[in-house]
């Protein structure tokens, strides 16, 4: 089929030129296919980069990429509800995520100050719900007065709020004040340890290394150090990824249902023209507050699932405004307004833009047989391209952010609808292209 080149250009639906094109075309038609295809390409690239280091490295890198892809997808989905659907220019995402994860930590941590900042010692699910509720409450506090502001002023207010949250969490004065009043603490600038990830408990008794549960023994025995040789921690990480994947699906379903409903229609209307929505009898302020609170609760949950699984959280650098901008870039890559785009944007951002360059840089660096000049000045002064390349590949992190900035500028110049283009989803609970009433007799 593929080599049957059709000379007839008038055919509207031409056969794809190659098998790859056919796969691409099929994937484009299905949202799930597109996500799987993207992940597959990322996995392929990652495998090519690391396969010489052995299976453990490959699986470890894939774990890292998948983890980041999924947590970014969660955050991106939540922000898409604000920015993509409703046009609320919230750039305080990092603050709402910090509120979520810190509240969870304080609620769940042991009251015994011997183990660091004391908490209330309540069960984890209570902590998660409390974290979402608190993030939502802060959303309300931000939204109530600020919703009537112009988009750019609104953005600055949310950014200011997120910085106030971060500086407060960082403050030892605030920590002390909390300890004296509520008997709980934040740990100030040092941050706080996070409760043990329950997924770890599935594999290890009480989470202790070397003490596997039945499930742990089975998995470690076949795939892990007793079998294929993958590190046990990486395998546990994959276990958590399954949890994250469930949450991504749950977020997606929730937001799709919200979006494809009269509620979502009102959100889009508010984004397009508030006065029209108002004139058609929609209580714009109330709806904006609602959607802002829902989005903030999801951001809180995303913060918990992401940073809560990382052992320790601290206000800086984890919750600096740059985190918000990463998530924004992910939304814009995917095309704001599309939930599938958000998932893809999150994955592509995390794997290709965030984690990719430094991996590629490290691999490239290994191929260069020259010492790295200590500074850029030395690298330039030596006038040796190899030295400069060595410096560049050793300092790939800043270059990757430069790339990120350029990608963002490029998208704003050339593809303001996102890399996937126009994927605006219809806001109705029924298929609008069909009509139940059948043809009308004229």
């Amino acid at each position: 089929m593929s080599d049957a080149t059709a000379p007839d250009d008038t055919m509207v639906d031409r056969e794809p030129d190659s098998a790859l094109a056919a796969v691409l075309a099929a994937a484009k038609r299905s949202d799930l296919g597109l996500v799987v295809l993207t992940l597959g390409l990322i996995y392929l690239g990652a495998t090519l980069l690391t396969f010489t280091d052995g299976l453990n490295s490959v699986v470890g890198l894939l774990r890292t990429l998948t983890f980041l892809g999924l947590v970014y997808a969660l955050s991106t989905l939540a922000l898409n509800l604000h920015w993509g659907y409703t046009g609320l220019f919230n750039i305080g995402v990092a603050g709402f995520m910090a509120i979520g994860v810190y509240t969870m930590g304080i609620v769940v941590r042991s009251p015994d100050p011997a183990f660091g900042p004391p908490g209330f010692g309540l069960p984890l699910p209570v902590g998660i719900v409390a974290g979402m509720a608190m993030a939502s409450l802060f959303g309300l506090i931000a939204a109530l007065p600020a919703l009537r502001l112009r988009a750019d002023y609104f953005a600055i207010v949310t950014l200011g709020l997120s910085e106030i949250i971060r500086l407060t969490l960082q403050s030892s004065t605030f920590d002390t004040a909390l300890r004296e009043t509520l008997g709980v603490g934040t740990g100030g600038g040092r941050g706080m340890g996070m409760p043990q990830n329950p997924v770890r408990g599935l594999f290890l008794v009480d989470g202790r290394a070397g003490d596997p549960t039945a499930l742990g023994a089975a998995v470690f025995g076949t795939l892990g150090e007793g079998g294929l040789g993958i590190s046990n921690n990486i395998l546990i990480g994959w276990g958590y990824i399954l949890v994250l994947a469930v949450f991504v699906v749950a977020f997606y379903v929730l937001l799709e249902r919200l979006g494809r409903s009269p509620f979502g229609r009102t959100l889009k209307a508010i984004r397009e023209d508030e006065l029209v929505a108002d004139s058609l009898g929609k209580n714009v302020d109330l709806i904006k507050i609602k959607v802002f609170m829902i989005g903030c609760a999801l951001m809180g949950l995303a913060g918990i699932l992401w940073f809560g699984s990382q052992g320790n959280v601290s206000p800086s650098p984890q919750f600096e405004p740059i985190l918000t901008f990463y998530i924004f870039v992910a939304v814009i890559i995917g095309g704001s307004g599309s939930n599938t785009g958000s998932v893809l944007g999150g994955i592509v951002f995390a794997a290709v833009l965030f984690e990719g360059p430094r991996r590629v840089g490290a691999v490239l660096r290994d191929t260069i047989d020259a010492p790295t000049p200590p500074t850029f000045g030395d690298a330039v002064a030596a006038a040796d391209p190899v030295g400069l390349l060595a410096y560049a590949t050793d300092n790939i992190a800043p270059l990757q952010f430069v790339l990120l900035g350029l990608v963002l500028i490029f998208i704003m110049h050339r593809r303001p609808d996102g890399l996937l283009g126009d994927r605006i989803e219809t806001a109705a609970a029924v298929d609008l292209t069909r009509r139940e009433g059948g043809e009308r007799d004229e």
Partner: protein
Amino acid sequence: MSEPAADTDPEAADSPVEQAAQRTPSGLPLRVDGLRKEFGGITAVDGVSFEVESGSLTGLIGPNGAGKSTTFNCITGVHEPTAGDVYLNGEAITGLAPYEIAQRGLVRTFQIARELPEMTVLENLMLAPKNQQGESALRSVLPGLRGGVVDQEEQLRERAWETLEFFEIDHLATEYAGSLSGGQRKLLEMARALMTDPEVVLLDEPLAGVNPTLEEKLLDRVDDLRAEGYTFLLVEHDMDVIMHHCEHIIVMHQGQVLAEGGAEEIRTNDRVIEAYLGDDL
């Protein structure tokens, strides 16, 4: 719009008129009493009072700066009047928010059509109806409750299609509203307004930028709808339209009502002529 009239002949709409007469409350649909609006010392509207009869097409005209738009905005809740009252079916709606006024049955269109460009024509229409179950975030998400939402959506979709057919833009149903021509947008706006089940429709220059063929169509639709009992208040600069279609005309000048009456009365009123040609009164 229970009976979308494929037939545009006004004679055929007799029975809807009767139906409408039954459902219209005895009070006047719209009454403005002593309306006054000041902006930082400048009085834009200065004690305007008028009434709009049920099922009528009332024209509101006047030279530039006469205060028509401010009056319009005070009625629809965009501005809060400095003094005076607005009554909808006898109920005071003065100072309510635009959405509250719309929910009570008074809906407006805009001078420059404000379609929602990145929504399809059908979405634009389906946005409008009041009290949709699915406007509750919870209902549209929870599995047990979503069934009702879907049922209602199917009914709305049917109504939206009928309304689009009535305005003869059903072939555009799945287009993005932003891709419509200027005249089509005007039709879309009026269709969307009707989807809210209004008592009174305020039309702000519905014919600006509309070509003659479409203009005819739009006016036919308005006539059909009046026959069904809808009440219209129209701000329009096209005098031919005002004179030929409005049975009652209110002329504003310098923030006040200058004259009121039928077309012939207005056309021969010296004060109106003077106001339009620009002499001091």
